[in-house]
């Protein structure tokens, strides 16, 4: 490189070209605006939830359908310690009417198992007159 004045040195520097850079990753982002992608996520999520729901209902129906059917009387699930979703579903599937199913699902008070010579604390408290 000969003796360089400022201009020639500048031309020499300009021969070093900045490296070519990667393509702008905006093309895809621009074509799918944020609002639209959020909407897509909601739609896909909703569709997935609906499919799962339909599949579960159909599975339950299929299971209930394969069980042996009794006469016209309401088919009660085997006595269980409490009401479960499965039990409720089975009842809804087999009851003659929605109302009948709801009646069966309603809370039934258990009969008292207090021996005759003893008293129920609840009964005693219920009779007491409490002054406030």
């Amino acid at each position, binding site marked *: *490189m000969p003796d360089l004045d400022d201009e020639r*040195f500048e031309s020499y520097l300009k*021969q*070093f070209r*900045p490296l070519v850079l990667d393509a702008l990753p905006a093309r895809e982002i621009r074509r799918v605006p944020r609002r639209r992608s959020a909407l897509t996520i909601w739609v896909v999520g909703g569709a997935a939830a609906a499919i799962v729901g339909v599949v579960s209902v159909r599975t339950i129906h299929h299971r209930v359908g394969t069980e042996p059917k009794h006469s016209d009387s309401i088919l009660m699930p085997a006595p269980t310690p409490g009401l479960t979703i499965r039990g409720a579903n089975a009842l809804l599937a087999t009851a003659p009417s929605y109302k009948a199913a709801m009646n069966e699902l309603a809370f039934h008070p258990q009969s008292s198992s207090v021996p005759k010579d003893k008293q129920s604390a609840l009964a005693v408290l219920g009779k007491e007159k409490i002054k406030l």
Partner: protein
Amino acid sequence: MEPAQGSTAEIESLYRQHGAALVLFALTITGERSRAQDAVHQVFLKLLESGDLRRAGDKKAYLFGCVRNAVLNERKREDRHGPLDDSAWFSPPNQDYSGERRLRRALATLPDDQREVVVLHVWGELTFAQVGDLLGVSSNTAASRYRYALGKLREAMLPRENSCAGSR
């Protein structure tokens, strides 16, 4: 808000036209190519989203200003000064890779204000008036910084060049 189609095309064209110089400018501040490229991409993505470029008078100078702000803000956030990574900054003439390395190191040794002026003027092809506006100094100050910087660069690069010429 989506930018108008014309504005998008213009922004993409500006990226193709000045992107390499903008990354080089960011690179001389950050010292890391990936960070520099990220900063430039960030600026262009924001512009594409907002279509804000129509308000800018001098678009090229505006872009350099945006990139400078993006890089300096990121540096402030991370409270670190960019280390000089060893990746190339330039495509050298005649495959002069040692010259490229010398130029890179010489640029790195310049004070920030001088280095900015050199990069903006030589590779960004901004006038001293534009550089002055961008850096908030007068065009005379920008020109003066440039002359100092050029002298230092020449000193850093010439001895090796002379010795190479002598060995031929």
